[in-house]
């Protein structure tokens, strides 16, 4: 085991300085103000600027549009972007989808898209969930029917976050409804500027604007098919496992989701200290400390819990921790950003709202508990009528 801090080499220090300078100059107050207004966690200018440095695909070689970063620099880059809440949401989904495109996509399409993924002009969003399906994404009813060298797609997808600033949606469609549920699926990378695509905004509790996308007789060339016909479930599994961090490293896959809680914990500690200095109560109050300490312990546990298990622990700690902070700090905790007297400029209020969706997106915690029960505890699978068939 090894939990030592990593000492940066001179080259890594130079990267850190370059990054700091870049972020200071690009993440201006205007960028944040715009993001607060749009609530979609994306700024195209900033995204393209990242791409111009090769930082959207940091570990790719420079010759392919990457930055040749080593693992330490890549982790640092990711941490810094997350810490500063950089509006770069498309990077994550694009990276996930690229796993499948690189493995199973048409070679010509692949060569065409690769430099654009790196530069930031090709962005991908996920088209899995449907209005009827929730986390049971294999129940997809959106259909694609072959028409010569094209496919005609009809249906709708929920929570296609980033569709309004992406160029392609990685679409899960049913190509054969006579086959068992998981076997009749095919993946496509559908250009979002195709005729018949309609994107409608859906605003959320956690300021994460998402979309409902409708597909009405959308004609797509067969070159946009990713992987074999009716083999979509296997194709999807590369990105899905990466999203669920199955077989991944020891870091909790839910860490990012719990970040606002951590900011709120810091804001609370700071507030308690200031409050005390101005003659208020709290910081030395054992009850206050004890309650705060319990949230810290569970947040630490979340970060220490690996893989899909950490996903459950982090998101549920985010939910319960934020609620407890609201109670601990009192009515001022409910004041949002920009309001007089808001604690940590609204960090607690934000964390409380933001946490709710984290137990759902990317697969609900129930999906993960089922996965833990079946794959880790080896408990017998429940037999639901719709498990294998539509």
């Amino acid at each position: 085991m090894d939990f030592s801090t990593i000492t940066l080499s001179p080259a890594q220090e130079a990267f850190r300085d370059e990054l700091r300078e870049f972020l200071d100059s690009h993440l201006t107050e205007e960028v944040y103000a715009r993001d607060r207004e749009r609530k979609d966690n994306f700024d195209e200018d900033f995204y393209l600027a990242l791409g111009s440095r090769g930082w959207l695909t940091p570990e790719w070689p420079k010759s392919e549009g990457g930055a040749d970063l080593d693992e330490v620099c890549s982790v640092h880059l990711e941490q810094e972007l997350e810490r500063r809440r950089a509006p770069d949401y498309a990077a994550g989904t694009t990276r996930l989808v690229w796993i499948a495109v690189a493995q199973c996509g048409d070679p010509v399409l692949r060569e065409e898209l690769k430099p654009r993924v790196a530069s930031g002009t090709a962005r991908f969003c996920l088209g899995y969930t449907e209005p009827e399906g929730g986390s049971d994404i294999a129940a997809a009813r959106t259909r694609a029917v072959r028409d010569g060298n094209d496919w005609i797609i009809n249906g709708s997808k929920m929570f296609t976050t980033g569709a309004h600033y992406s160029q392609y949606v990685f679409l899960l469609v049913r190509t054969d409804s006579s086959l068992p549920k998981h076997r009749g699926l095919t993946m496509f990378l559908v250009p979002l500027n195709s005729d018949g695509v309609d994107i409608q905004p859906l605003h959320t509790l956690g300021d994460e604007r998402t979309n409902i996308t409708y597909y009405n007789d959308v004609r797509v060339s067969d070159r946009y098919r990713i992987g074999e016909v009716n083999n979509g479930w296997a194709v999807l599994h590369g990105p899905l496992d990466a999203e669920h961090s199955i077989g991944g490293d020891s870091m909790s896959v839910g860490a990012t989701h719990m970040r606002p809680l951590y900011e709120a914990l810091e804001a609370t500690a700071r507030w308690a200290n200031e409050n005390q200095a101005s003659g208020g109560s709290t910081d030395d109050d054992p009850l206050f400390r004890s309650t705060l300490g319990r949230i810290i312990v569970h947040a630490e546990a979340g970060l220490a819990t690996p893989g899909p298990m950490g996903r459950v622990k982090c998101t549920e700690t985010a939910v319960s921790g934020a609620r407890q902070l609201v109670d601990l700090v009192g009515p001022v905790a409910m004041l949002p950003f920009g309001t007089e007297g808001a604690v940590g400029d609204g960090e607690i209020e934000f964390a409380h709202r933001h946490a709710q969706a984290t137990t759902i997106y990317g697969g609900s915690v129930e999906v993960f508990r089922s996965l833990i029960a079946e794959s880790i505890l080896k408990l017998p699978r429940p037999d639901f009528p719709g498990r294998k068939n539509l």
Partner: protein
Amino acid sequence: MGYDELRRYDYSLEEHQVALVKAFGDLFEKECPPAVVRASEGSGFAPDLWKRANHMGLTSMSIPASFGGDDSSLLDVALVAEHAGAVLAPVPLVSHVVACRALAWAGAPREVIDAALTGERIVTLALAPVTPAAKQLVPEAAIAGDVLAYEAGEFILHSGSPRKSVPNHAGSAVGWWSPSSSDHRLVLASGADADDLFRRACDEWKILMAASLVGLADRALSIGVEFSKTRKTMRVPIGSLQGVSFPLADGAIGVEGARNLVSRSAWMLENAPDDQPELPRIAFSYAREVAADVVATSVHVQGGLGVSLEADITMYFNRATAWPAPAGRISEDFAEIAAAFASRIR
């Protein structure tokens, strides 16, 4: 907390740790079936098991070589403690190892350390600072003649006869103890040294107890899981029902996180003790909550059978909360953790 730190998070075992875990794991599984635990419930002690474990170097492994030990790490002992916890081994591993390490650092007389290293002379630790008039429940005091205690700025080795065993929830060798119980009193350190020694010993006790609780919880979970695979209701195994499987999945989530916190806190205490000094309390308080949750789940999963004293799970249930109790309230650890967290933020 590791959000903006560039730190390694490598939980993989080293080769010698794999061997160590295998050797002690085999010993505890083989020599400590539930019948041994039941037979020891009056005394809280299985002397044969203790002897065998010490033949394999249980006590001496983590003692500095200059005192006749094998110089291995607290983390190594924690890995072993997890396996002892899994079978509820009635041996004073946690208190005795922690006390022996403290004796070595405090420069206790060589003959005391020598006798303690073989496990023949059992030493324990009073986990609360001593107040002259008050007695306290000290773990293993019913089998240990030597008690390390902190009193008015001094770290003291009290020697005498083991106390009378006290019937208790865990069937453990806890005993009522006060300084007046001792025949001999040897001041090992005073002032800041005494503070440091006592604080360090308490931190180590918490880490090793947390490790034991991880083992206890892991095994308690397995008992519940196995039961739910075979027990049927309406012709399906109850483990296929989400009302049963989800609480068990939560148990697995808790055990994994607690295990990692124990490992990291043990490593950090020896390699970077000032980076996050509250880590032992974090690992300990979380392991306590997890163990208490898991045993309750596992009792419940087994329904009426789970509360019958014939069921092994009841032994796990009793120990999950009683073992760590002498180290004080969880809420007090929480308060200290928050104070340490806040001190880094201002």
